[in-house]
């Protein structure tokens, strides 16, 4: 009953249990954080707007993405994954969500930013519905913890519109 193997097993099991409880407590402490993030996205330019040979519309844009996400960080935050997605409706699809840009914020110091960029991922429709299309730009973020539960939320910005004509 007191062989090396039994003792090692008892110690290991106890250690793992304590560590798991600590991880759980660390994750639970994240619930007490009440964040107040801000964000805004400006479309500076429509670079081009065409129908592809497969019949799908595609548009390329230059964006100014700015946000202050520093209130999302807690001591248990490893990084915040942030992305901006365009959301719109078409006659065939009740909802389309296309991620245009994403980034990783590794620490609170980097959480207030202004990015000037073209869309990192191609903004392509399933079909040819982009002319004059109204759409939302939503900034989503995922708070990836050092341990435990991941939180996700978003800010929806409405009022964007694609041009009436290809260019």
């Amino acid at each position, binding site marked *: 009953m007191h062989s090396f193997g039994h003792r090692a097993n008892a110690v290991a099991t106890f250690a793992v249990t304590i560590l*798991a409880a600590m991880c759980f407590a660390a*994750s639970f402490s994240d619930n007490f954080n009440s964040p107040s993030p801000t964000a805004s996205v400006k479309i500076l330019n429509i670079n081009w707007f065409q129908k592809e040979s497969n019949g799908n519309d595609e548009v390329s844009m230059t964006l100014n993405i700015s946000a202050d996400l520093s209130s999302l960080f807690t001591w248990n935050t*490893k990084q915040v994954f942030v992305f901006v*997605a365009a959301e719109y409706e078409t006659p065939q699809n009740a909802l389309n969500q296309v991620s245009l840009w994403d980034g*990783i914020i*590794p620490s609170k110091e980097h959480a207030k930013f202004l990015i000037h960029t073209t869309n990192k991922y191609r903004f392509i429709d399933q079909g040819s519905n982009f002319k004059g299309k109204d759409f939302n730009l939503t900034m989503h973020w*995922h708070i990836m*913890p*050092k341990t435990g539960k*991941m939180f996700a939320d978003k800010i929806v910005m409405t009022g964007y519109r694609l041009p009436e004509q290809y260019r």
Partner: protein
Amino acid sequence: MLVQIVSLGMIVTSALIIWKGLIVVTGSESPVVVVLTGSMEPGFKRGDILFLHMSKDPIRTGEIVGREIPIVHRVIKVHEHQESAEVDILTKGDNNLEDDRFLYAHGQLWLQQHHIMGRAVGFLQYVGWVTIFKVCLFFLNTPIDLEIKQWLPFIVHSDRCTGLTGHI
């Protein structure tokens, strides 16, 4: 000797009960997965474990989802059809330059909801290594080794206990 076999049997069957219970509670066929590659770094590293949970809610961008081959990547595009409410999904590992189309079946451009096993809702660092080592050391080179792998499907791709295969 008989005592050892019986206690071994009890350990294994309680692991199985916990495993099956987790499947029911989370609604996912593979509720715990071990991260095998660095394609989601720096968020998830090799050897971390992820907890997956599946619900009937439609998949949306940003969610981190796992498939039958446990590749857990982020959804970057969603197209939901009007009539059928079927969803077309495109995924990409955070640390990869390209989206996952090179991993899908030949000619397949999109995943559907039924391909998804669950959304990642939480994770623990390093625990994956512990699990793999514990099972391997106990059962190395015994005929039980293969059977355990069958019952503990979250230990995937570990042909050899000294390393992990899998280049996804």
